[in-house]
């Protein structure tokens, strides 16, 4: 239960990062064809870091779970 909640929270963090990347364009506080504002640059940067970290963390956690399942399987 707790492990599943942790995995779900990693997915939510990844989706939040993706939303931060898309938010300046979706909410139109970064007009197309104009130089990026400081807010848009910051959101995209933070969102990208979050998304990459959550993506990697999710699969590392998933690999660990699979390894535990292999270790605890009956002979």
């Amino acid at each position: 239960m707790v492990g599943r909640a942790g995995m779900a929270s990693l997915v939510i963090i990844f989706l939040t990062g993706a939303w931060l990347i898309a938010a300046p364009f979706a909410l139109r506080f970064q007009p197309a064809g104009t130089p990026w504002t400081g807010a848009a640059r910051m959101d995209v940067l933070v969102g990208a870091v979050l998304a990459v970290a959550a993506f990697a963390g999710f699969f590392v956690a998933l690999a660990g779970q699979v390894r535990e399942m292999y270790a605890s399987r009956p002979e």
Partner: protein
Amino acid sequence: MNAGRYLAGLCVSALGLCAGGWLVLTPFAFGYPHRGRAAVTGFATGGGLALVALAALTCWALAWRRKLRADGVLAARQRRRSRRSGRRQARAERLVLATRTPELTAAPDPAQVLTDLRALLTPLLAAEGSALIRTMPGPVAPAEPAVAEPVLTEPVLTVPAPAPASDGQTASRAVQVQVQAPGHLRGSRSASFLAPSPPPAEPLLRGAELLMVGTGEEEAW
């Protein structure tokens, strides 16, 4: 143990918490327009991200602690309920020891118990008119027809009654006392599997003595 899984979850959660805090502080740090879209997005996303990251941090920490307890690295947590039940168990054990010690010190000798039991049962067996005790003629008495003898099929204990006199005529007509064993059913039908001749009580008493000596407790009775 696979600690990388939990470490990855904890690191990503901590990074998310830091990112959420940073997103909340960014509008103030960079002077975004008040109530502008960028500021509202930063507040809302940062606040939500901080909450989710905090929950994730808690979940991964709990999962890791649970795994460490399951592996025996961390000591098992003692809950209040188990503490209470432990106190109750200790109190019950003390009570049992306090009530059992006098019995152990004053444990009667099994041979003495059997002697007292004989002294108690002999007058009872000899008494007549009791509900459990009946008398019948001894083996030297004239035999009756086997068809009309339903009493012989009842489960009874037969012990020789004390000899009232020493003269041969009276001794030849000595009576035997039959005691119905408790728990046995009356009637020839339910006791038909028993032997037709009732067992004497002396071997039973010897068997009881052996049983008591074998178990070492008077609870065998």
